[in-house]
């Protein structure tokens, strides 16, 4: 653990503080910032024990002594920098994070209409910036490497809501209806507490658990129940 002293200035965020440390004290200090505006998700780290985005964390809201650690779960690159990109790519592949449709795109056709309310509800879940805070705060993900985590569940919920995605309940069940998936969730809800974008993760977990629970009953009795 390295220690640095820095004089606080007005409106200082950890973005400003860490860059000053790099320029003035430790030129090789590793940390990640990209947009520095809370929309790229690069700068998540443990800030006094809690995962959050460094760029929007104001030093005046923290005690005089600030403890910064890299996010757990993700592979460490160095200092405060972790490789969340590889993790999220694997997650995207696992949940097949794209609209599944057999309809080809017709460049000459008008778009399919959609209710604006629905579009806004989809956007609500699409606001995830893949920062990894929910994963870092997840008891299960910290214990079990293959646990999918709230970001994955939120992504599935986003596509289930989207009428353009033609996947059936069974297909979603195959992805998420298991111990690595929604049935492995311990319900601690650290994910919801720390999400810097305040995505309603708890609602998505509840919805998925209900739907997949029902799907699992259907699955068990699939030979007896009409489709």
């Amino acid at each position, binding site marked *: 653990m390295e220690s640095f002293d820095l004089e606080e200035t007005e409106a200082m965020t950890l973005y400003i503080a860490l860059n000053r440390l790099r320029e003035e004290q430790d030129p090789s200090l*590793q940390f990640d910032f990209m947009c520095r*505006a809370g929309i790229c998700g690069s700068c998540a780290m443990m800030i006094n024990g809690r995962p959050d985005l460094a760029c929007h964390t104001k030093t005046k809201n923290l005690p005089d002594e600030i403890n910064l650690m890299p996010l757990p779960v993700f592979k460490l690159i160095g200092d405060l920098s972790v490789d969340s990109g590889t993790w999220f790519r694997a997650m995207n592949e696992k949940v097949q994070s794209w609209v599944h449709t057999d309809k080809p795109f017709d460049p000459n056709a008008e778009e399919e209409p959609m209710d*604006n309310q629905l579009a806004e509800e989809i956007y609500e879940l699409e606001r995830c910036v893949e920062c990894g805070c929910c994963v870092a705060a997840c008891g299960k993900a910290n214990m079990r490497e293959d646990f999918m985590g709230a970001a994955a569940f939120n992504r599935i919920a986003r596509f289930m809501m989207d009428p353009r995605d033609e996947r059936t309940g069974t297909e979603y069940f195959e992805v998420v209806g298991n111990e690595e998936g929604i049935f492995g969730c311990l319900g601690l809800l650290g994910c919801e507490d720390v999400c810097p974008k305040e995505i309603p993760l708890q609602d998505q977990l509840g919805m998925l658990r209900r739907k997949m629970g029902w799907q699992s009953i259907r699955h068990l009795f699939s030979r007896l129940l009409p489709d």
Partner: protein
Amino acid sequence: MQAALGNACMGEGDCPDVHFADTVKGSDWGCDQEVARLFAETAPIAVREMAHWGIPWNRVVPGTGTFYKGGKEYQKIEKKEKEGFITARDFGGTAKWRTCYTSDGTGHTLLFTMDNQVVKLGVKVHDRVEAVALIHDGQRCFGAVARCLKTGKLRVYLAKATLVATGGYGRLYRETTNAVICDGSGAILALKTGIVPVGNPEAVQFHPTGIVPTSILVTEGCRGDGGTLKDVDGKRFMDTYEPEKQELASRDVVSRWMTHHIREGKGVKSPYGDHLWLDIRHLGERHIKTKLREVDEICREFLGVDPVTQMIPVRPAQHYSMGGVRTNRDGAAYGLDGLFSAGEGACWDMHGLNRLGGNSLAETIVAGRIVGEKVADYLDGCEVTFKTELVRDFVRQEEEIISRLMAGKDGRENVYDVRNAMQDVMMDYVGIFRNATDLRHAVVQLQEIHERAKKVGLRSSSPGANPELALGMRIKGMVRLALCVAYAAEQRTESRGAHAREDYPERNDRDWLKRTLATWKEGDDLPTLNFEPNSQVWEIPPGQRGYGVSKIIPSEDPSVVGNGEASKAQEVPEVCKTPETPETN
């Protein structure tokens, strides 16, 4: 993302012709009109393709709604038959409401939806890898030497086709809305070849509303939805400078009036310098918390300001680089076969000297679609012989650069000090208002900084993922690119679009209907500037934009002015009072 769908009632009658005209006017007739035409025609297809891929575009809600313009409330009635089609909002400099959006996270959703397609297609992405040199033999590009930012190791990518899509060069400036990584690395790669030119490096746009102090952008949608700008006395001023368009005049015009107003002593004093206020309070809590949610978040999270009850401190900041790796209309770079570029990193060139709000995301998606196809066509039947000694030489060159930096063989200049010096010069002397004295000063200063950049030595010794080393490898290129901007700005003795010369206030169509092409010969301390006509086709001959103050020295070239109405040597009054017709504003 602008696309002429014409679904929203305020966009009725819109079509690619109108989008094309807005783009050409926005560019101040500095764009390539063939490219602007291609772009405007393709944008509606691209926006619908993105919908097909999953973008939750906001949709038309039929019935009566209200909107604000210049602080006044107006009513609009969306038609029932358009219900559920992709809607649009107002951005500056357009005749119609044309900017498709997803609340205020349009860039975010476009990025993620595109990434979804990349995952779907199984395209491998090499994350955290930075190209440091293009491998070429003076005729052809064979790929790139790159550096892994996880391990610090160099690696080679051999390729039949190489595409540069690295975004802009905002980080040449101290105040910029751009992401931290927008350091011009693509343009730097081009300059490093000594062959591939950077087009119009001087074409740099400032955004009116960067928050103070961090310069995070608050969207133009704030003003589109009726937000107003106020000064130290709490008074509006855009209604005086631009009575018709007011806060919605194109962003270069708004930025310049803001700077002008601050210079008149009407700015608000702060520890970070003078600023103005953006007021969106009258839009109401519901509107701010839904339609402008990111703005609300930015203010509360990064400033501790509640925009529902408080005004937002703003001032212009560097925002967009119209210049970039110069390509033809297929996205193929000048000078090297097998090299392409697209997006903000390229000078394709649909923006000319000024880009319209909503046209950059649109360019990224549209150019990706068009240039992507052209690259695929190019690769069809393309065979290349790779020479190992050429590859070895380029790798050795980079190894040499790294070892000299690490050992401090050329000196002990602090790389962060050199970068900060460059950013200060760019901000103070190559900003919104430009003149010969400032620009000469900037060029001389940057030449000194260029000498210092050659003498950078690292203080750290870690060879791996070391940020000081990454900047050390880039700094000389950054200063050279800054010199391209400053020197080209000095040479362009006219005012056009975002390039505003106080000593040459007129737009000079007689001498400057041309594009700067900057290259860098190794050993020089200034770029070499060449020029080319900025368009071969003049579908719309140069004329008045209808906003901003402009005097025009007309073109005398019949191939430019044609049989259409030529630009006349006319002076528009300081304050343009003529109401605009929907077809021409």
